[in-house]
């Protein structure tokens, strides 16, 4: 099992890095897909089959297709010439430093071998919850939890997605009516 874990972990992390550094956006999208599939394989190793399949179905199968779809309509030669500006470089450097510090704080004093992170990751519920739900992996248990105990977070996520969707529609829509009003 450890061998499989190492293979899939490398398959997740290395393409993720390559996705960030690759100049060609199509290569970047393909690396991202590989990374998603690798992550799905990691879920399978945890026996979370439903999560693994949703990962492939939603991210690799639907969202990335749309990404690739848009990227392919771009002019590749123009896109590859774009160089990141000074402000962007500095901002990304600061973010990287913040992430490293954050992970170090999260790991605590005893580093990667520490039990606190492993405990946090393996806990089946909110760490502070009074009556944690048992760890269940079947699709039915997952749906049951989603519609009973976790109803509020579930609904809030749905509203968030709806808000972002409406925002995208408004931003991407051509403003013909307002221009028409200005002209008249």
């Amino acid at each position, binding site marked *: 099992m450890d061998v499989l874990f190492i293979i899939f972990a490398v398959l997740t992390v290395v393409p993720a890095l390559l996705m960030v550094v690759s100049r060609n956006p199509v290569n970047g999208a393909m690396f991202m897909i590989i990374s998603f599939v690798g992550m799905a394989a990691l879920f399978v190793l945890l026996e979370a*089959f*439903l999560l693994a399949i949703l990962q492939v179905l939603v991210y690799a*199968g*639907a969202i990335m297709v749309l990404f690739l779809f848009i990227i*392919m309509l771009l002019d590749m030669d123009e896109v590859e010439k774009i160089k990141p500006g000074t402000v962007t470089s500095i901002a990304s450097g600061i973010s990287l430093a913040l992430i490293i510090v954050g992970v170090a704080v999260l790991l605590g004093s005893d580093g990667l071998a520490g039990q606190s992170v492993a405990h946090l990751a393996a806990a089946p519920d909110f760490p502070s919850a009074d009556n944690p739900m048992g760890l269940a992996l079947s699709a039915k248990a997952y749906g049951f939890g989603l519609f009973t105990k976790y109803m509020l977070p579930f609904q809030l996520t749905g509203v968030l997605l709806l808000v972002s969707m409406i925002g995208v529609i408004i931003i991407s829509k051509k403003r013909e009516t307002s221009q028409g009003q200005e002209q008249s």
Partner: protein
Amino acid sequence: MELTSILLKIVFAVLMIVVVMTMAGYSVLIERKVSSWVQGRVGPNRTAPFLVNYIPFIGPLLVRMGIFQPMADGLKFLFKEEITPGHVNKTYYFLAPILALVPALTTMVVIPFGQYTDPSTGASNPLMLAPLDIGILFIFAVSSLGVYGIVLAGWSSNNKYSFLGAIRSSAQMISYELSLGLSVFPLFLWLNAPGVEGGLGLNAVVDYQQNFWFIFVQPLSALLFLVAIFAETNRLPFDMAESETDLVGGFHTEYGCFKFGIFFVAEYAHIVIGSALFTLLFLGGWHFLPGLSDPWPAGWIGAVLSTIWFLVKTVILIVFFVLIRWTLPRFRYDQVMKLGWTILLPLAIGNLILNAIIIALIDSQ
């Protein structure tokens, strides 16, 4: 013991690939024979390996049926000159056919194809490679990856016709994936209705159809699923991806010889898997006839008989796929999109809600 079980699994997987690939090859023959029958032609009737013609009666009959034609077709693809156009993006150009075929062959892992009844205990088990609890989701997930083969083929070919074909087909596949998924959800609602422990596996669907078939109980679901699967396999009323009249060859315009052969086989493998899926979901899988108990005896004879019955249903559906292709004209692209978004999708959602309400009403009584 560990090694034997792994070896056994590999042997089973290879056997299954051989069966599906053979069926894909012979679907091409079915296509050619049915098309010739529809058009009043003879179809392939000459191909004969040496000496077969000298076997009395059977030999010439097999030759006339074109049984050896798929082998000749396959060899032709292998022996053609391997041409790579100079203006393509090589990596993705070679990767695309593989990406088109692999998902088609991966989906068959969760497809059950027969049942084995233990003679001593009477317990029956489905025959399948991986008894996954969420088989139908697995099939949707893996087959949604198949679109990358087409998209990358169109883009890497660096050709306007290829690219248009790829764009059209990916838009079409994304649109119809929604209807495809939503059309089968009512089945699984009934399967997991209060008091029934079904799960999302395909063998559970077949078990549930012991006495009645879903096509009679859920005809709307069956129709929606059939239309969506036609669109997903890029078959003729929906073959926007390769409509010859306006796109030359669509996404595989720049592909020749064996690479084209892989695309070709992938398309027919999709048809085989789609037919098998329709059989499992709506036609009762390997169950004999609606209302009748299975006549399959216990033991391996029954297992073989049930598998043959399942394959018979699948082949009938493949012939239906082919007949539709040679009967209906091609849609226009905007008609395809309109059908998908304004008719199929609302119908599928309405069907799902209706079934949910019925189940809730039955449950509340």
